């Protein structure tokens, strides 16, 4: 983030609109100095940054309804609306931003009677390389991405309270540690570990949910069905072989019977009967098939008899009412009505022709039935066709039934004759003949039994096939489940790997970072402080000073000055290390910036001359941009000398006091003396701000 300018109106001590304050740019002259006496608005200026960017102010600095300048309220009339705002322009990466925060109040009967008009409003606009300005609706998010709110402790601070970094209150400790972790991406790693661990838990649950033992059971069941099926098929084939063998035996017996003289004639008769039987069986099969075809192609007509009757009744009813045939065209009636003259020549236009016109209009309605008549004629043909089809159906079915009956009768007769022949042969006086015939009967019975068994075997095969198919379907689904389970496991393994790697990286990075930061802070502290103390950064990123004694460092109670120095060294160390990591690309995704501003209010407050010089010299070199607010005494001497040649802009906060007698306070720059305090023309104090030059 590179700060470009700040402008304010009626903000705290600043009455009216300030000029646009330009800040020194990173480079040779990155420092901007504001001079002001106590109470002139130096802290207000610091708060102008944090109030605008984060809606935050220093502890105890102001209440929200005290933002508006008192003199401005005094000058307003009762009922007037007074706005106070601060606008900051800055650059980040390739974008320019303008953020403005406004608070609006209404003045009551007195200037103390102020009512806020809603909450303060922050507007953010940005322009990319194309130079076009756009409104950013997510103000907090956008600013948070550029410079997270909890990092502002490092970049915008009150020097008089800076020792808080070393001696933080209990509730501030975590904030400081978090800000440090955030700046160096440790927070990102910790959050990533937390979120991936949560995802891993969900993946574990998914994995457990998907897994089951049913697939194994189904596969076992399938194996059993497959075995049963194979057994049934083998039985079917075996029965087939039995039938074939029996038929061959049957044929042999019959051949043998034909050769026996006593049976020859009877056997020949039987052969003839068997031929007849075969022909009749074929005929019966054919007629049965014909009946099926007839029913499937023509029988529907039988079910339409009722519909045909309804049709006839409807048409007959219309005929009786005279609606059919229509006999007159609608257009013809329309023409008569249009011409106002009936077919009989009578006028339909006169008032006394009302009844006649109604009669003709009645014909128009009847003429509308012409369409119905056309359809009735067409449907009539179809109905007649259906009725004809019905009678033909019954006739043909009767014919087939007759053939079937005849075939059955004939088959029955043939069977009877065959049985007589068999009986005759069985009871024959010739022993061999009887024996052969009994064998023949036994063989036929065996064939019949095997065929029956084959039938039931076939049924069982079909049943098993269906079951197998169903099982295979279910197993396929389970195999898909198995694939899902494997996927879930791979995801789970990936999550575990991700966590392990981030944990490892974080541990390595944290160890390195802590050492680097400790070294950096120590080096700075060693340059600035003349005490033998050694700074140390604890595991919680808390800052401590230790005094080396017998090689064992011991905690020391640091003075306010030492604490301030230490805090400044810590901030300097953090900023310079962040810049270094950034430059080396030795970083993870994190707050992305190559410029870090440092806005310090009274950073030299309670420091002695040596420390002032050191801080001014060392700390201000660590940031890209430095904005400091000082009193004349804080500036004079060491600080002035240290910063000489590096200040881009000087500004003076001129404080107008309502007191009659004010001690003069001035600052001299480039031979010009500037008053820091003046007499207010009213009973209100206020401050004006003006640029007074640069190095």
């Amino acid at each position, binding site marked *: 983030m590179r700060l470009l300018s700040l402008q304010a109106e009626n903000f705290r001590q600043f009455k009216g609109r300030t000029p646009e304050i330009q800040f020194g740019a990173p480079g040779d002259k990155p420092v901007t100095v504001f001079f002001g006496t106590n109470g002139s608005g130096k802290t207000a200026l610091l708060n102008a940054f944090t109030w605008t960017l984060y809606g935050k102010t220093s502890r105890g600095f102001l209440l929200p309804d005290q933002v508006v300048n008192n003199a401005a309220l005094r000058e307003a009339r009762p009922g007037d609306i007074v706005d106070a705002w601060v606008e900051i322009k800055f650059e980040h990466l390739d974008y320019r931003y303008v953020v403005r925060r406004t608070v609006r109040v209404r003045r009551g009967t007195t200037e103390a009677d102020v009512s806020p008009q809603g909450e303060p409003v922050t507007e953010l606009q940005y322009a990319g390389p194309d130079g076009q300005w756009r409104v950013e609706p997510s103000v907090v998010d956008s600013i948070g991405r550029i410079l997270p709110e909890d990092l502002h402790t490092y970049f915008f601070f009150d020097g008089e309270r800076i020792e808080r970094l070393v001696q933080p209150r209990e509730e501030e400790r975590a904030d400081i540690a978090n800000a440090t972790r955030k700046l160096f991406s440790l927070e990102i790693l910790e959050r990533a570990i937390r979120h991936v661990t949560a995802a891993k838990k969900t993946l574990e649950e998914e994995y457990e949910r998907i897994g089951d033992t049913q697939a194994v059971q189904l596969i076992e069941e399938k194996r059993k069905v497959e075995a049963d099926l194979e057994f049934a098929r083998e039985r079917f084939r075996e029965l087939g072989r039995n039938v074939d063998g029996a038929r061959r035996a049957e044929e042999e017996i019959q051949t043998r019977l034909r050769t026996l003289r006593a049976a020859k004639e009877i056997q020949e008769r039987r052969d003839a009967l068997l031929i007849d039987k075969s022909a009749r069986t074929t005929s019966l099969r054919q007629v049965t098939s014909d009946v099926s075809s007839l029913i499937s192609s023509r029988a529907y007509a039988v079910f339409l008899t009722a519909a045909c009757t309804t049709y006839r009744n409807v048409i007959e009813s219309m005929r009786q009412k005279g609606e059919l045939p229509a006999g007159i065209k609608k257009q013809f009636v329309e023409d008569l009505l249009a011409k106002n003259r009936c077919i009989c020549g009578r006028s339909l236009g006169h008032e006394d022709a009302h009844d006649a016109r109604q009669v003709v209009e009645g014909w128009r309605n009847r003429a509308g039935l012409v369409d119905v008549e056309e359809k009735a004629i067409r449907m009539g043909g179809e109905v007649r066709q259906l009725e004809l089809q019905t009678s033909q159906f019954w006739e043909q079915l009767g014919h087939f039934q007759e053939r079937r009956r005849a075939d059955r009768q004939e088959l029955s007769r043939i069977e009877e004759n065959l049985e007589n022949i068999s009986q005759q042969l069985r009871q024959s006086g010739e022993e061999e003949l009887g024996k052969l015939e009994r064998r023949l009967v036994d063989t036929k019975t065996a064939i019949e039994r095997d065929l029956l068994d084959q039938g039931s075997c076939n049924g069982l095969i079909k049943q098993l096939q269906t079951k197998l198919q169903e099982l295979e379907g279910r197993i396929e689904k389970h195999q898909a489940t198995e694939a899902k389970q494997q996927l879930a496991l791979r*995801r789970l393994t990936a999550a575990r790997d991700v966590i392990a790697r981030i944990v490892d990286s974080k541990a390595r990075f944290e160890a390195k970072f802590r050492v680097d930061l400790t070294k950096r802070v120590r080096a700075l502290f060693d340059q600035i402080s003349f005490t033998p103390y050694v700074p140390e950064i604890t595991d919680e990123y808390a800052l401590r000073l230790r005094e080396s004694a017998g090689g064992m460092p011991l905690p020391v109670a640091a003075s306010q000055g030492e604490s301030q120095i230490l805090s400044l060294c810590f901030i300097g160390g953090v900023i310079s290390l962040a810049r270094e990591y950034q430059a080396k690309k030795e970083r993870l995704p994190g707050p992305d910036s190559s410029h870090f501003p440092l806005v310090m209010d009274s950073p030299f407050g309670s420091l002695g001359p040596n420390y002032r010089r050191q801080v001014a010299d060392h700390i201000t070199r660590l940031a890209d941009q430095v904005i400091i607010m000082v009193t004349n005494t804080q500036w004079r001497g060491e600080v002035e000398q240290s910063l000489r040649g590096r200040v881009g802009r000087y500004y003076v906060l001129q404080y107008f006091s309502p007191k009659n007698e004010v001690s003069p306070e001035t600052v001299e720059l480039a031979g010009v003396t500037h008053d820091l305090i003046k007499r207010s023309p009213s009973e209100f104090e206020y401050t004006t701000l003006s640029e007074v030059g640069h190095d």
Partner: protein
Amino acid sequence: MPDDKEPETPTLDAFQPLREAPGPIRTIIERVLTLEQERLYQRAPRLNDDVLRVIKEEIR
């Protein structure tokens, strides 16, 4: 400088475990860290579902 021992900077490469991760794992790490970066300004971002989605998208 006081006679305290100067701490030694660890020589282990901090980002080696991330850099040497196999393809999809590295992609997951990069995507997750970018998500975290984008929501760093929030105190407690709800990213569980997004992170889960990233893992599922990268491991198919």
